[in-house]
């Protein structure tokens, strides 16, 4: 056996390499799949907030009408409710008690807040003064409590032991003393699960105006469990399990989905207290599970074409090799060994080579998976689980079966055919059954892809199927075409080209070489295309989602404070952005920006926003009407007839809307005269300048106003104020024909004709009653107007000055408008998301901005860079699966190289004999050499180009069905355009590499084309 293997080392090596590739594909798939799953778990757990990856259980004492201190399960009892095997996945639990610690307001108490005890609480705060509480009734207060509320160590506070609502008015509450033994400062980090301990000392409570809030007091468990006193109000016991992330893999995560049912545990179910279980782990597990389901299909589908390609090449090589052993089979048959003996002769030589190849193949898969696992995020290691063994056994069975079938095929050849010297290989147009079946199968499947009948991950199979279809057809066409072409050239005496084509037509391996090269090139081209398209789409989605290279969310809604901080930074690439996202699925999000800064900071893809958008949404050049002082007066002349529905005269009151520090307020000046002149006046709180937003007319609902008044001699504290030209005032206009039309200017005349509304306003143009906005194409717009949310959350009209495909950092339905226009009469509501967008994610730059904001008391609640968002897209099963395509492409190219080498090795003797015949027949040696080198190049070129086209067609059909994202981004940025440069480069690489191999093989055959070859054939 070994001698036989050693005799044809090249063939044995080819078999071993192909077997290794097939094995590697089969074994790698489950290993990589598992590594991806584990990596996904690590990523999801790392990305999730600490509270979502923790298990928090809490029970709160319930009290009825009469206050009865409730007995609630202790934290230890809660721990026992968690199954032991699940507890193992968490770190040691943090046990705690919490209760209300309010002073009694009936006896002059002023403090309200909470007191808590936690396992090793003092280890997770900084003791600033004093010591850690050691016994019941001792507390630590925060440094702010000490500073703001004067709670110094050594003092005591007396807190109520019952809620005030359970004790009749007039009676004092039962009380308990708590001794202050020290002060603490919180330590930033996850230790308190992001539950703030401080930040509200001295602020008023919402319920009892006389109480001010103290911060969280830290105490001992004994304070809560002391049976000698009544329990404190609102007593809660809790336990917090923090996930031991290193211990949790995909299997454990699946198990943790049972936590969703933990609230049904007996200890929680039987208590009279209110149980609460919080964990985000089941949701994370569900999210992971959906991607894992995809990966189970994706990875095999990506590797299957490569594996099948390797198997097909192995089969072709086995056919060639077994055909080369026909003489040896004849020897066995002539010595009476029969079919079985002949088969044994072949299998004892070939099977060891194939099985030996499986060993390095499996090892390569292990090493590859180990490297891949290291490249993946998280701590995913190599896990050899039952599916791996199953794959290994399966692939070994396939390899053995393939070898046996190939051996039997030759061993069963009739002896008379074996002893014949001439080849029995048929050439020409005879369609073999297997090829016919393959052609039909590929054709039907390809048609299914084209018509959209097949979709999803199965799309990964499309390029290989297309290529196989094209390759097979091409293989069948090339032989007769090459022969016909060769004969035609021969008639024209173009001997060189003719002999090359005739040589190709004679080649026994032409069909298989063409098919394999076509499929391999298609896989390579498709892989390049898929990887680059996926990368581009992830990038586009990340840029869309991020909005800017770096976005800092801030806790304040004071844009002025942000402006002051950013002035210090002095960089045009940083700008504030206010996002208002109204509730509801179809709501339109408002993105309020400063156009100039936004253009520099935001990631705006070319062509997405309409040309001139910045100017279009910028405020008009009208100056505001500023008033500074305390007394506003105006002379009104003319007259207004004001009557109600019954024609009774009513008042029409002239007023003003003023805005100071973005807070709007209204003042009535007085009733308009029916005729003549009147001097109207009102007090205004405008020591600091106010902007005059609008002139208002108010009357009774349903009343009619008709007349004309002129406003003159407007003054504040006696100083004249110019109202400006009438063009700077937007009149009132209603659909029923009512209107207030301004005219003139200093004095300003208002022509009034209204019926019905009780209040109308003429707005000063600086405030822009109608904001200019760029709306996304997903937003429905009527007559270029729509209602948008102002930064105060209130609806306001907007004029659409342009449409955008999408807006950076905004959902599908969104408008882009000017921040200053929106905030002239409004302040951002608490629901508004105020952020600072940076045009660079450079760490130093981000830090500089953060420091500047901090210097102006603007707290940054989160910092998110484009890289962070991109990482979110990159770290997913679809991404890792597509990246596997690179490996597939490279391996496919390697298989093609191997195929050429095998074809050369197996057919070199016949080709060398042909070349020697040409030489002896009078063709110059140099010409023969050129023929040998160039003979395969046309075939290779045709196959590679056909493969490239197949890959592109396969891409075009399948890319839209291939999952590029774990979850489809809300805003569609899909762009499946072919990266022509890269695809072209990949095709050229295939062409050059395979052409070079073909040329080298031809050269090697030529060197052996001597007279000895001719003797062999005698």
């Amino acid at each position: 056996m070994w001698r036989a293997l050693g005799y044809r080392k090249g063939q044995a090596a080819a078999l071993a390499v192909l077997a290794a590739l097939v094995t590697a594909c089969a074994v790698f798939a489950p290993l990589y799949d598992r590594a991806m799953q584990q990596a996904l778990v690590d990523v999801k757990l790392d990305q999730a907030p600490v509270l979502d990856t923790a298990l928090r259980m809490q029970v709160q004492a319930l009290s009825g009408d009469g206050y009865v201190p409730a007995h609630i399960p202790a934290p230890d009892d809660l721990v026992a409710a968690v199954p032991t095997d699940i507890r193992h996945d968490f770190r040691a639990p943090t046990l705690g008690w919490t209760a209300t610690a309010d002073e009694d307001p009936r006896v002059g108490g002023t403090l309200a807040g909470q007191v808590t005890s936690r396992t090793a609480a003092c280890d997770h705060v900084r003791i600033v003064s004093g010591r850690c509480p050691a016994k019941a009734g001792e507390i630590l207060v925060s440094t702010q409590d000490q500073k703001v509320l004067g709670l110094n160590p050594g003092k005591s506070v007396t807190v109520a032991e019952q809620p005030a609502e359970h004790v009749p008015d007039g009676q004092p509450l039962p009380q308990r003393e708590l001794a202050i033994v020290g002060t603490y400062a919180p330590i930033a980090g996850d230790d308190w699960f992001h539950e703030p301990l401080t930040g509200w000392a001295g602020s008023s409570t919402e319920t009892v105006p006389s109480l001010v809030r103290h911060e969280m007091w830290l105490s001992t468990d004994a304070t809560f469990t002391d049976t000698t006193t009544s329990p404190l109000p609102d007593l809660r016991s809790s336990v917090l399990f923090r996930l031991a992330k290193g211990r949790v893999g995909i299997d454990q995560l699946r198990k943790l989905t049972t936590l969703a049912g933990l609230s049904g545990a007996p200890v929680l179910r039987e208590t009279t207290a209110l149980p609460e279980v919080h964990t985000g782990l089941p949701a994370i597990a569900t999210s992971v599970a959906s991607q894992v389901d995809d990966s189970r299909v994706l990875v095999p589908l990506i590797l299957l074409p490569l594996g099948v390609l390797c198997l097909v090449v192995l089969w072709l090589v086995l056919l060639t090799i077994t055909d080369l052993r026909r003489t040896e089979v004849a020897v066995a048959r002539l010595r009476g060994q029969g079919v079985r003996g002949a088969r044994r002769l072949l299998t004892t030589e070939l099977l060891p080579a194939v099985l030996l190849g499986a060993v390095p193949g499996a090892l390569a898969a292990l090493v590859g998976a180990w490297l891949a696992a290291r490249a993946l995020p998280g701590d995913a290691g190599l896990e050899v689980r039952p599916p791996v063994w199953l794959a290994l056994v399966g692939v070994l069975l396939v390899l053995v079966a393939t070898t046996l079938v190939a051996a039997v095929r030759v061993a069963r050849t009739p002896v008379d055919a074996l002893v014949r010297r001439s080849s029995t290989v048929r050439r020409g147009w005879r369609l073999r059954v297997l090829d016919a079946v393959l052609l039909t199968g590929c054709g039907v499947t390809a048609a299914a892809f084209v018509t959209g009948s097949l979709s999803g991950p199965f799309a990964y199979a499309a390029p290989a199927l297309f290529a196989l279809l094209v390759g097979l057809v091409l293989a069948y066409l090339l032989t007769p075409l090459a022969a016909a072409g060769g004969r035609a050239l021969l008639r024209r005496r173009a001997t060189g080209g003719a002999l090359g084509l005739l040589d190709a037509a004679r080649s026994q391996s032409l069909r298989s070489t063409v098919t394999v090269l076509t499929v391999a090139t298609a896989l390579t081209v498709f892989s390049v295309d898929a990887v680059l398209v996926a990368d581009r789409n992830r990038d586009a989605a990340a840029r869309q989602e991020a909005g800017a290279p770096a976005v800092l969310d801030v806790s304040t809604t004071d844009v002025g404070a942000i402006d002051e901080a950013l002035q210090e930074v002095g960089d045009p690439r940083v700008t504030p952005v206010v996002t208002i996202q109204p509730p509801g699925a179809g709501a339109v999000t408002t993105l309020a920006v400063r156009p100039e800064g936004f253009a520099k900071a935001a990631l705006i893809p070319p062509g997405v926003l309409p040309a001139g958008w910045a100017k279009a949404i910028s405020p008009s050049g009208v100056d505001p009407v500023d008033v500074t002082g305390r007394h506003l007066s105006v002379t009104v002349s003319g007259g207004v007839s004001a009557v109600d529905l019954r024609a009774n005269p009513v008042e029409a009151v002239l007023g003003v809307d003023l805005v100071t520090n973005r807070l709007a307020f209204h003042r009535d000046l007085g009733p308009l005269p029916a005729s003549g002149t009147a001097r109207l006046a009102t007090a205004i709180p405008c020591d600091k300048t106010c902007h005059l937003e609008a002139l208002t007319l108010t009357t009774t609902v349903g009343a009619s106003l008709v007349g004309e008044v002129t406003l003159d001699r407007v003054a504040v504290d006696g100083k004249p104020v110019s109202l400006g030209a009438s063009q700077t005032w937007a009149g009132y206009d209603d659909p029923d024909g009512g209107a207030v039309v301004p005219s003139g200017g200093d004095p300003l005349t208002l022509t009034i004709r209204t019926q019905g509304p009780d209040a109308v306003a003429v707005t000063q143009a600086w405030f822009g009653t109608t904001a200019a906005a760029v709306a996304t194409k997903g937003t429905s717009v009527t007559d270029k107007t729509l209602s948008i949310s102002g930064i105060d959350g209130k609806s306001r009209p907007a004029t659409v000055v342009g449409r955008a495909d999408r807006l950076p950092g905004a959902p599908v339905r969104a408008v882009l408008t000017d921040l200053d226009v929106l905030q002239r009469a409004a302040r951002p509501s608490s629901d508004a998301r105020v952020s600072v967008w940076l045009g660079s994610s450079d760490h130093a730059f981000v830090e500089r901005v953060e420091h500047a904001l901090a210097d102006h008391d603007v707290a940054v609640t989160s910092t998110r860079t484009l890289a962070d968002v991109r990482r979110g897209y990159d770290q997913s099963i679809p991404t890792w699966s597509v990246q596997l395509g690179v490996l597939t492409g490279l391996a496919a190219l390697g298989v093609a190289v191997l195929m050429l080498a095998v074809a050369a090795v197996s057919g070199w003797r016949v080709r060398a004999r042909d070349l020697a015949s040409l030489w002896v027949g009078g063709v110059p040696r140099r010409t023969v050499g050129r023929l040998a080198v160039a003979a395969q190049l046309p075939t290779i070129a045709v196959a590679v180009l056909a493969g490239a086209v197949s890959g592109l067609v396969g891409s075009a059909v399948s890319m839209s069905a291939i999952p590029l994202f774990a979850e489809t981004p809300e805003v569609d940025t899909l762009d499946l355009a072919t990266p022509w440069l890269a695809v072209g480069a990949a095709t050229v690489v295939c062409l050059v590499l395979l052409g070079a191999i073909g040329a080298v093989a031809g050269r090697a055959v030529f060197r052996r084309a001597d007279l000895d070859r001719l003797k062999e054939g005698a």
Partner: protein
Amino acid sequence: MTGLRVSTHGLVHIYRAEGHDVAALSGVDLHVAPGELMGLLGPSGAGKSTLMNLLAGVFRPSAGKIHVGDTELSAATTREIDRLRATEVSLTLQGAARNLLPYASPADNVRFAQRAARTTGKDLPEPLEVLADVGLTKDADAPLSALTPGELQLAALAVALAPRPGLLLADEPTSQLDHGARDRVLDQLASVNESYGTTVVLVTHDPHVAAFLPRTITIRDGRVGGEGRSGEEYAVVTADGFLPLPAHVRDDLPPGTLVRFHQTDGRYEIVPEETHD
């Protein structure tokens, strides 16, 4: 060991090719006595190799019967023929390399050739003993690439003799050999024939080889065209009464010539009829 008797009766073999059939043998009657050493002569395409393959059970005859020993090959099953080839009938194909496993030494080749026979329980000689019979002992374990063409042919002969067959069929065993190697191969064949009584039938083009053989049969146009015994050439009357003319007579009697047979004193004369054009 005794040689096997070989006989054929009205043996016909037709090659069926696409579009047309070719009759390679058209009624061959042949009788080879046990232990006989004989040669098949004839021009290329006459059907010699076809006859050899038929005798070895490689081809099935289109018509007629073949008896090898007690076995009627034309009626034997594949298994019976395999068994016969394993133990009793050895065929050596033209070109020594076609009879040998290229990666195995002569000894291993002999051992391989005995594998099937060994399963039948037949008493077999050691490979070295077989190789000694053909004078190849010193190269028993040498790679085939180290052997001369003559030694390769001897190795092929040893492989054929490995199961101690009763019938050895050798197709052109001396082609492409120099005189020395040729004589050595012939000597070994004769030695085996003499020592073990093996019936030996060989095909040759070589007149020297033919002269060496006690009996030769010439196959011409798919029929037995003549027989030579101890240097004397005979025409052979076929079972259906045909008498092929010797080659040198054919020039004088072209096809279409009318002849008369005259019997005079126990002798036959063939007299061409004069034609009047």
